[in-house]
């Protein structure tokens, strides 16, 4: 029997970490490719929870169900690095990946906010985090704090640990996905 450990099935607003958005973009890339009779790629790059069709569908529907998905512009900046270094896409495949990604970001109305380094540096608590977890993760915590909403991530060791330490609501992907898929 499946038992659900989902903490909040109807997250209205959440900050999305780059690893989560990256997983969604890979799954969408695969979906479009499969529609065109091309093989799915990079499944091994995904969290084990997302390597099976059931988990993939649940994840994409979960993402879809979050009405307001907030990201910082740092997240978009990190994506290109992830695409090039982890997927090594190039040429036509790279163009296609971004074409599909832009459409998914539009479909999901992903709300990209600028959190400047100056803003982070001006906050005593956040400034001390910059050197610990880097500006992108610090920006996500600032965004979550500012909007009183959780951060969703796969990064338990750095982002989640620091979020919990400073009492920012942080949900790990494995906490949001039903167990036993």
């Amino acid at each position, binding site marked *: 029997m499946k038992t659900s450990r989902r903490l909040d099935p109807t997250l209205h607003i959440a900050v999305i970490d780059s690893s989560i958005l990256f997983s969604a973009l890979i799954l*969408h890339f695969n979906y479009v490719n499969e529609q065109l009779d091309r093989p799915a790629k990079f499944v091994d790059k995904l969290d084990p929870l997302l390597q099976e069709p059931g988990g993939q569908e649940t994840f994409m529907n979960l993402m*879809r169900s979050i009405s307001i998905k907030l990201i910082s512009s740092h997240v978009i900046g990190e994506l290109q690095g992830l695409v090039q270094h*982890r*997927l090594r896409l190039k*040429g036509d495949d790279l*163009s296609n990946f971004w074409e599909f990604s832009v459409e998914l970001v*539009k*479909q999901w*109305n992903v709300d990209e906010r600028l959190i400047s380094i100056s803003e982070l540096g001006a906050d005593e608590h956040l400034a001390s985090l910059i050197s610990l977890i880097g500006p992108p993760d610090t920006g996500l915590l600032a965004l979550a704090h500012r909007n009183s909403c959780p951060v969703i991530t796969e990064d338990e060791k750095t982002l989640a640990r620091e979020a919990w330490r400073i009492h920012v609501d942080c949900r790990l992907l494995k906490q949001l996905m039903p167990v036993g898929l």
Partner: protein
Amino acid sequence: MLRLLHIRKEDSPPGTSTTYTVIDNGRHGEKSGFGESCAFTREALTSLLSQEGLPSSAIEDALGELDETGSAQIELQPRIGPRIIRAWFDTVLNPLLQSLELELKILQKRNLTFSFRPEKFELIRPIRRLLEYSVWPNLEQIEELNPALKEAFQRHDKDVDRLLDAVIALHTALSTDPEFTKLCDSLLTPEQFEELGATEHYEVFGAYPPSDRYNLIAQYVVNNPDQPAYYSTAKFWNRNREILLATLQFPGVRKRYLVTIQMADQSASDNRELIRTLKDLRRDLSFGHDVPLTTGDENKPAA
């Protein structure tokens, strides 16, 4: 690059035929080092020089020089070697074939991947846009040696332009057609939203603003896509797909639609021909130069 043939006449015992040692320097485009050395009879040497495109008079001169001095040097056109072929395969021919085969599938499915802003196809592009900028010189080298292929590439790019023009005209005809906009409005009432389980515009159309609604719906009609369930627009599109596709038969739209189909068929036909030409070229180069079509790891992702 210079390709030199060094020929030396060997001493032969009386009563035996004369042999010639030929060193083909730069046969594969090497800049330095020893070339390949082979022994030829006079007839075989004449035949070799003729095959390399040397005029008869130049062949006679070379043989005369060999008889007189015992050696000769002849400059020949550089031959395309396996390293160049490998680069062509990996950077141009294989990626192009992959992209063109994908393009053909899209044309056959008639999901043209048109986007109204900017007005373009997501997955149908001119030849150069299918390749990385850094490999364009290889493409230009291939075009230089294959004028017919260059023309086929130009034909492909013209097809893309013409098809895009046709689709833009169809999209404009649809999105500005009063019957079409009236139908869209009737599908976007608060009651219809409620049936879709939505209250806000963004729940149905994502980041597309309300002012884009006719353009976006017309885009879907033009492309007729299968939308994944996780798309914001999926519920609306799947629910109203049939009635919206019927708008392609509206009097002010039908003619544009037929032109688009005609252009898509023409593009598919030219695309098929181009794929065949590229595969023939690739096969000939592979067998002619003993170069495998692929080494199998061009797109291997990082571990």
